[in-house]
């Protein structure tokens, strides 16, 4: 790392970015904070509420339930997408004309608007008109994600795997590509097994990009809203009502701005905290 020179004028360079992001982040954040400590009965009349909303949200079973659903969902999709993505990256060709073909096809789901993803999966999985729904029912399994909680979870998770595993694949593949051929050749001569090559050559080189992959997948899956909302609408019942969906229901559906704002902040803090812990742990590992 080259040493950087101290230059207070550098602030001028970052000023446009700071202004833009501050306008978009700080003002809405202040609004949210403002709501979270007030009560309103409409007509823009507000009363000081203190930390009441926070206490209410933190103790509400509804919040606990959606948080638990959210954690389970994020845990499951990470447990599937990361190993699967790495496995696919490992089996991809290292060079040749097929590389571009693979990459182009794999990147496709990433560039589809999120509600189109939801809509696509909706018509793909519907038991009467969808290929997947028909297929599963044809195998003799009773499957209807609009009515069975288990089927709804299965479909939501499958959709997320479909949508996002490629991100892990592409990141892992970028890491793998940076390994010179000589490493594989030396390992062959040293008699290393496939597992040893993975453990001592491929995994260490992928560590950085995998950190990014896990961090991105964690953050994005924790914020997931559009896809499951379009697919299941949070149902059947509340079974796929994740944090964001619940939040929007409270804020826009019931217009309970105070609790919604308090919940937003708690929710934001959770994402921030978990990301920070994870990032720090990974970076400390790297320094050793």
């Amino acid at each position, binding site marked *: 790392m080259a040493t950087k*020179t101290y*230059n207070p004028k*550098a602030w001028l360079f970052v000023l446009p970015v700071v202004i833009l992001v501050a306008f978009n982040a700080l003002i809405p954040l202040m*609004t949210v904070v403002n709501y979270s400590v007030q009560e309103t009965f409409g007509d823009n009349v507000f009363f000081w509420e203190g930390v009441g909303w926070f206490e209410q949200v933190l103790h509400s079973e509804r919040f606990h339930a959606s948080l638990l659903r959210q954690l389970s969902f994020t845990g499951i999709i990470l447990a599937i997408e990361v190993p699967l993505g790495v496995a*696919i990256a490992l089996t991809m060709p290292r060079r040749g004309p*097929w590389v571009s073909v693979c990459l182009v096809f794999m990147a496709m789901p990433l560039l589809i608007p999120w*509600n189109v993803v939801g809509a696509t999966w909706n*018509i*793909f999985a519907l038991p009467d008109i969808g290929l997947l729904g028909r297929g599963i029912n044809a195998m003799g399994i009773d499957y209807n994600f609009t009515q069975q909680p288990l089927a709804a979870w299965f479909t939501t998770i499958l959709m997320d795997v479909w949508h996002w595993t490629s991100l892990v694949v592409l990141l892992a593949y970028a890491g793998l590509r940076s390994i010179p051929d000589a490493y594989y050749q030396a390992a062959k001569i040293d008699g290393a097994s496939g597992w040893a090559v993975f453990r001592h050559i491929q995994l260490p080189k992928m560590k950085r990009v995998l950190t990014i992959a896990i961090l991105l997948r964690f953050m994005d899956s924790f914020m997931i809203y559009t896809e499951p909302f379009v697919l299941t609408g949070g149902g059947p019942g509340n079974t796929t009502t994740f944090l964001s969906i619940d939040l929007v229901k409270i804020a826009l559906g019931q217009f309970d701005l105070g609790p919604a704002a308090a919940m937003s902040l708690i929710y934001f803090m959770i994402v921030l905290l978990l990301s920070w812990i994870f990032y720090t742990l990974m970076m400390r590992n790297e320094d050793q």
Partner: protein
Amino acid sequence: MRKATWLAPTLYILFLMLPIYWLVNMSFKTTNEILNVFTLWPQNFTLENYEKIFTDSTWYNGYFNSLAYVLLNTAISVTAALPAAYAFSRYRFLGDKHLFFWLLTNRMAPPAVFALPFFQLYSAVNLFDTHIAVALAHTLFNIPLAVWILEGFMSGVPKELDETAYVDGYPFWRFFLRIFMPTIAAGIGVAAFFCFMFSWVELLLAKTLTAVVAKPIAATMTRTASTSGYELGLLAAAGTLTIVPGAFVIYFVRNYIAKGFALGRV
């Protein structure tokens, strides 16, 4: 052993393509066929759905609206991120590390949290239902990403390049535009790709900040699905059309994808 390695990527791509195939398949069917018979490919092949989209201005305007704010956002994000990324990669200054982390935290902000305050903010400044509103709102998560990617690419350029240019008497802005930017052209391309991608796929904010004039195509789609009954063929055709720009963009950057996903440094 060697032989079977093509199997996994092939199966995976097949899995990725199936739902897309189903969508495209449905877009060429009549509503009648979709609802009454189950067919693996269109029996009564029709372009009716596409015809409707291309002739109805609420539909095709949605398309232009989406492209307008996405391109606007990409331009704003990359332009603002360039000097900032340069500052982060070359200089130390008061609060630099905290600032970088603060920028990144904005990527972690759930859009659902900001939906309502955004609506109020942009209404207050009279920008509600304009392209620029969505473009500005999307900078919230695209600028941090663009800064991050560009900083990675810039740190890979040796500082000697800057110093040589100064010694040769280049004024800073000419150096930046004529020498530095061409050097990291790949990085700019990658950053633009990511900005395009995230702005194109995001809908919650785009929908919240628009009503009629700047309504994105994907939002027009959901409205149709709910209001005019279940016109599935039309919905599928509109969905198919939203995939097209993405597919184009991927095709153009296909050789940079792997590098881009490494964010410039592995």
